[in-house]
């Protein structure tokens, strides 16, 4: 959590899209930006890129104000996937409330997926976050491509982790909202359990979700 000011009734949460290089993290945020209503969300801020590859991060902010007056800001980040940008990944990961791991569905991407996931585990522990307690969703992206690993194989490999695994094509725009809903819902539950969002601050989960995920007309 970035910030929680009880007096001002303000909470700032952080979600991070993690994963190997070129798995489609920025594309996920672009798709969210395109599909979600401009009300309640800010513009997608893309820091410098080289040849379409993120070198710092992208940021898509959401702002929610509950009928009770409680304000929740949700900042959604991507990290650079290339191995060399590990310091940046670590910095972005600090104080994250939820992580979407965007994996590459291509057969050639399987080993880099595992490497990147190991890197996520390592960096989470380095920034003091416990992976067991952190809301975490796995998205297998690029399902629109022909040479992807079959879904049942993916489920067989990742099922034992107990993590929610979703299929998506960020480029075509499907699976993106479902992934986002999943991580927002999980994050809400976790924060709610700890801070009593509903009980103490009158924030209803369904209202929160529908406001954040309001689809553009």
């Amino acid at each position, binding site marked *: 959590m*970035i910030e929680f000011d009880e007096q001002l009734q303000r909470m700032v949460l952080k979600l991070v899209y993690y994963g190997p290089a070129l798995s489609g993290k920025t594309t996920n945020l672009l798709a969210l930006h395109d599909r979600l209503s401009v009300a*309640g969300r800010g513009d997608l*801020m893309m*820091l410098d890129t080289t040849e379409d590859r993120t070198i710092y*991060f992208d940021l898509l902010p*959401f702002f929610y104000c509950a009928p009770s007056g409680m*304000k929740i800001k949700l900042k959604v980040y991507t990290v650079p996937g290339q191995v060399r940008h590990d310091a940046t990944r*670590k*910095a972005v990961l600090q104080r994250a409330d939820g992580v979407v791991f965007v994996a590459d569905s291509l057969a050639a991407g399987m080993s880099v997926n595992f490497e990147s996931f190991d890197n996520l585990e390592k960096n989470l522990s380095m920034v003091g976050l416990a992976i067991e307690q952190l809301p975490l969703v796995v998205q297998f992206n690029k399902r629109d491509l022909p040479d992807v690993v079959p879904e049942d194989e993916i489920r067989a490999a990742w099922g034992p982790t107990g993590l929610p695994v979703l299929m998506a094509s960020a480029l075509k725009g499907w699976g993106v909202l479902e992934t986002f809903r999943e991580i927002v819902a999980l994050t809400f539950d976790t924060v709610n359990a700890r801070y009593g969002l509903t009980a103490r601050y009158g924030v209803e989960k369904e209202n929160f979700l529908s406001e954040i995920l309001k689809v553009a007309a």
Partner: protein
Amino acid sequence: MNMDTPQLSFIVGEERRLSAIISRAEIEPLLRSLVKAGPVWAAVVDEDDLPLARQGVDAPLQGYRQIRHDLIVEAEARGALVMAFDPQLCPGADSLALLVRDALQLTVTNNLKRMLTTEMHTTVVQESYDQLMETNRQLLESEGRYRELALELERKVEERTVELQKVYSRMLQQEKLAAVGSLAAGMAHEINNPNGFVRSNLETFGRYFQKMMDMVQYYQLLIASNTPLPRLQQDTEKKRRELKLDFVIADTRDLLEQSITGSDRITRIVADLKSFSHVDESGISDTDLNAELERTLSVLAPQIAADTVIVRNLQPLPLVGCNPGLMSQAFFNIIQNALLSRETGLELQVASRIEGDEIVIEINDNGCGIPADNLSRLFEPFFTTREVGSGTGMGLTVAREIIGSAGGAIEIVSAGQSGTTATIRLPLAAGKR
């Protein structure tokens, strides 16, 4: 930069106030232009509605129309452009306000972007720097450790070298003692044998001497009793035959000759031993290697089976500067191995010659040979195929050390069952150690 520099640390996503993102200096020119175009008053206020900058009259604003446009920071309104104007006097104020709001919003967004980039860049640089410093520190530390280790190692090597030298000289001594031991057994026999017959001859001579004394006393007795000459001749002749004096005298001559020969043999054996061991000498002297080979063969003679054929092919060699005692020890160890290679029918060839600037000594036998597996281990200390207690396993090790320290080399070739050849090469200009 030193380690005490306070670290800049940013939390990505940290909230910041509008005043931290846009400065008064950036706002004021826009407001000034805005007010010049008609509105009486314009200001930018922050999230607590406190003005960051303002332009225009300070008069009461009643009667003027006011508009407010939010400034958005990360999806949230975090301040606003507020403006008051007279719609009659300034009909285009609405669009002017939107224009200025857009300009402010762009500045805010761009500033924020720049700040985030800078912060992230600083964080990454800082972390890389910290990592480099840490790596550097670890490297320096391990370098220090290795330097210490190297020093320690050097000291230990010196210690162990001294220890090894002591052990080596003790080992050499023991090997020498072992050789002396095996020599002693043969030598004892060689000395006891002549000594035995010299003693037995002396005993026999003692009895002969008694007989001669008897003869002398008999003469004295006859002369004392004035025995007439013919009788004296007759009686003494009889006594002489009785005592078998002719035989006794002849045999005595043989006995004495034999005893002298025996005694000479003992003298020669002792001289061989003494010269073999070089007990009187120490250090390097001009040495005739052929003579050393002969001496070695000679002291080993008691261990050489009777049917052994020894072929010598010793060509004249110049004197070589070396330690003769040690060199004969080396020959002894090698030749003794050859003697043990076969029980009967041994043919031992000992050859020496000059090849280029080297002296080559070859000792060859037609014995049992050395299995290929053992060839590489021949010079290993304590490697032996002999029964426990009968070989020290040091013979060839010592031989190689001795030859090596004289600047030479030894090579042993064995063609399985058909014998073994040891080849020793020593530089002609030896003596360099």
